[in-house]
């Protein structure tokens, strides 16, 4: 009987071999899919099992995990500043997360490879894994000032402020906003309906307007046209005279480009400074046509457009628009055609001029430290591009200071500080009141802050270009003062 017994023994071994192969297949090959299956409730529990790191900025705690008594959900997420930082921190919901909570998720929950050493030490000392802390570049005073000022306007809008020398984001506010705590609870029955409700609202409180929404830039774009014009011929300067007719005939069409409200611009031939101060349309339309599409497009690219930017949330691309005819180019040169800009992109333009022509890569994460406080990562400012020569930057700065001193943006003046700026009033297609724009930096001689602000449909009442500056400039002023301690 031994030979059939040996065969049975082999058959038994084969059965165990089959089981082992199958277990290997399940736990090694297929494990990832099974682990991530949405029906696998473990993912849900695991989210709350680890003490996530804090998100801080300027000594303020923006998000933290606090221990609960519920053993199923050991830690829940708290947002002490609630709505003020909602678009920066994002939320941490039962099945997803957003903004910094999402971009830095692996560091916050401790699963990142950068924390391998820390985790190995914890393994031996028996300490539970804790996520890394993320410190942001946000200046809490600027953030608060921007939020309050924007809210006072009662409109939807956005403001983003940068440190022009580093690219660090000092303020990032988008209104309307939401309370991340409401979306970060553990009760799916409450969180999901609330999310759906917010997602369906017409004024889109979940949308981060500073980086995820593009707008027609309006007259703020004239700064770019001016930059290209000055770069094109270095002999041109603030006092160079240009033609400024009351109406600029557009080639191959029977329409002509007027100035705002059909007004005249000086005596028909004005200095570049005057054109920018008064935000005349005709000289800029003419400049754009003279330069041509390629040079204009190239200038926008030098200011950072067309390069994928993440801060670390990815930024929607701004666009100068496709090449059309001369008439379209003239309109694009005053920011009123198919060019679409995020507020962050406009802030980068202001920051580039402020920083001697060099555009720094914008970023939001200043420093990452592990739970013990040891540094894991410290942001290093990086140059994104050289937009204009330092000479051109100087000329632009001089003219933008003049805009605030003598022009449309006098409401942005801060006593004792030279403020540079440019207003914009962007008409929207659907008959809505135009958007009010303002880009600015200060102090002009040694810039500490550059910003862009947009108030959606904010230039409602008066029929003058000044209305761009009327609504948006005071908001910018509040932020400038907050950063400069005025």
């Amino acid at each position, binding site marked *: 009987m031994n*030979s059939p017994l040996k065969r049975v023994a082999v058959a*038994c071994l084969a059965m*165990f071999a089959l089981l082992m192969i199958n277990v290997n297949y399940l736990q090694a090959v297929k494990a990832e899919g*099974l682990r991530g299956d949405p029906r696998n409730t473990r993912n849900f529990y695991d989210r709350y099992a680890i003490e996530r790191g804090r998100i801080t900025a300027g000594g303020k705690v923006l998000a933290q995990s606090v221990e609960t008594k519920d053993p199923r959900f050991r830690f829940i997420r708290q947002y002490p500043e609630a709505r003020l930082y909602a678009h920066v921190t994002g939320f941490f919901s039962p099945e997803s997360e957003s903004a910094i909570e999402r971009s830095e998720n692996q560091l916050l929950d401790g699963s990142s490879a950068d924390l391998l050493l820390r985790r190995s030490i914890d393994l031996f000392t028996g300490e539970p894994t804790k996520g890394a802390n993320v410190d942001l570049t946000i200046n809490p005073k600027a953030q608060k000032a921007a939020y309050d000022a924007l809210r006072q306007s009662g409109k939807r809008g956005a403001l983003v402020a940068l440190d022009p020398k580093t690219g660090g984001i000092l303020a990032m506010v988008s209104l309307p906003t939401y309370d991340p705590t409401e979306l970060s609870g553990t009760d799916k029955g409450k969180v999901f309906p609330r999310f759906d409700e917010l997602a369906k609202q017409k004024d889109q409180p979940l949308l981060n307007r500073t980086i995820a929404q593009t707008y027609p830039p309006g007259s703020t774009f004239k700064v770019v046209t001016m930059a290209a014009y000055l770069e094109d011929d270095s002999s041109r300067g603030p006092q160079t005279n240009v033609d400024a007719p009351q109406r600029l005939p557009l080639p191959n069409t029977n329409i002509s480009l007027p100035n705002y409200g059909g007004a005249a611009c000086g005596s028909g031939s004005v200095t570049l400074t005057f054109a920018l101060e008064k935000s005349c349309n005709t000289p800029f339309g003419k400049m754009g046509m003279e330069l041509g599409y390629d040079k204009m497009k190239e200038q926008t690219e030098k200011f950072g457009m067309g390069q994928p930017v993440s801060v670390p949330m990815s930024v929607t691309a701004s666009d100068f628009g496709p090449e059309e005819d001369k008439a379209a180019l003239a309109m694009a040169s005053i920011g009123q055609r198919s060019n679409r800009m995020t507020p962050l992109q406009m802030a980068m333009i202001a920051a580039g001029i402020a920083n001697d022509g060099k555009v720094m890569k914008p970023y939001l994460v200043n420093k990452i430290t592990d739970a013990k406080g040891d540094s894991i990562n410290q942001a290093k400012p990086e140059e994104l591009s050289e937009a204009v020569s330092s000479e051109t930057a100087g000329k632009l700065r001089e003219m933008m200071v003049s805009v605030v001193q003598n022009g449309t943006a006098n409401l942005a003046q801060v006593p004792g500080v030279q403020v540079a700026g440019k207003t914009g009033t962007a008409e929207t297609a659907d008959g809505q009141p135009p958007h009010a724009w303002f880009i600015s930096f200060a102090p002009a001689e040694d810039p500490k802050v550059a910003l862009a602000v947009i108030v959606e449909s904010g230039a409602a009442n008066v029929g003058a270009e000044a209305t761009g500056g009327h609504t948006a400039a005071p908001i910018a002023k509040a932020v400038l003062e907050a950063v400069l301690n005025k």
Partner: protein
Amino acid sequence: MSEVAESPVPMPAKRRVAQLVMLALAVLIIMGAYANVGLAMTGEVPVGMLTYGLSLGGLMLAAYLVLAKFAPWADPLILPLVTLVNGLGLVMIYRLSVSDSNLPSAKLASPSSQLLWTFIGIVLFSLTLIFLRDHRVLQRLTYTAGAVGLFLLVSPLIPFLGQEINGARIWIGIPGLGQLQPAEFAKLALVIFFAGYLVAKRDVLALAGRRLLFIDLPRARDLGPVLIIWGVSLGILVMQKDLGSSLLLFGTFIAMLYVATQRVSWVIIGILLFAGGAILAGTIFEHVHQRFVVFLNPEDPELFRAVGGSEQLMQGLFAMGSGGILGTGLGQGHPELIPLAFSDFIFSATGEEIGLTGLMALLMIYALLVERGLRASLAARDPFSKLLAGGLSFILAWQVFIIVGGVTNLIPLTGLVTPFMSQGGSALLANWILIALLVRMSDTARRPPPQAIQNEGLTQVFQR
């Protein structure tokens, strides 16, 4: 085929010290696992660990002493291996019971009763070794065993005695003790019956009839016993809705028939018969059909939501997937999310926490146990012992294959216990008796034959 041990063979050693060391290691591993669960879940070593550990250790020491006295030549590996698996099952059930959840798998896990059953199991193991000095007496009880086995199988159908739990009428109530699953004991009785019967009839069964292609078909009139067992198996399936036991019994019978007769044709006939029966059952019975549908496509969202659908299976697979290669660590996963994590799905629950690495070790332990049993069978000197040891080893392997293959979706899922791990007294007791029989037979097989008084000048006897 030689029924007498070939000589000269190297004499086996007793290896009693090695066994004691391995037993101590097994108990230590289990105590460590207990401590691990406690530290992970409550932050402190569980209060009961020392009592559990000491009593388990004490009991194992007692079992060891019984074994050393009554079966000194027994295979030293079997008892430590069983101890380890039994202990791991205890740890998992304890771990499930302390998980903070209202899910059935946490509520129904009962470590104290499982520990009690383990104690009784080891006592039965010792008693079997003490009272059954020579397993060959069982051969005389062939037909008695057959009758007892059949009676135990049908006993749940007897009014007042039998009870229906969770839709399967496979339990009998014993006043003061609770419920028992007589089928677990029936398996033992039936393997004894098969061994005795096949030894008696194997010559007839091995006679070839016609030759078809490459296979010597047995004579048609010898098909009788096979058809009877087939009928009994299907009867269990129909009347008790117990797919697992039916498959287990039939497979074991076919394997033993093959060992007894050496004829592959029996295996082929068996497989054909079973396939026919399964297809028939699949078309007639909805629950059998459902199992097969779930097996083919467990991830289907429709099936996942359906009552009696694939959710339970998928929960087990999710657990194993979440455990991955290294596992979450004992006490740190969520095995309580699997329905029946303490019984049918204890393998998946264990897999979540000890990972692929742990499961490979666990399967290796089972495989070693089975191969040790088969080794005893190979070494046995008489055909009855060979068949009995082979049958008992095979039923163990086959049972692990059916349940583990089922919960890992290698084969359609049928409800069976994972030997020594699943919560439940009957299976644990029956399996401890099964191990006692294997130990007894390995002792007999390895015991050196009595030495004839020899003229030392003629033969050099090798002895350690």
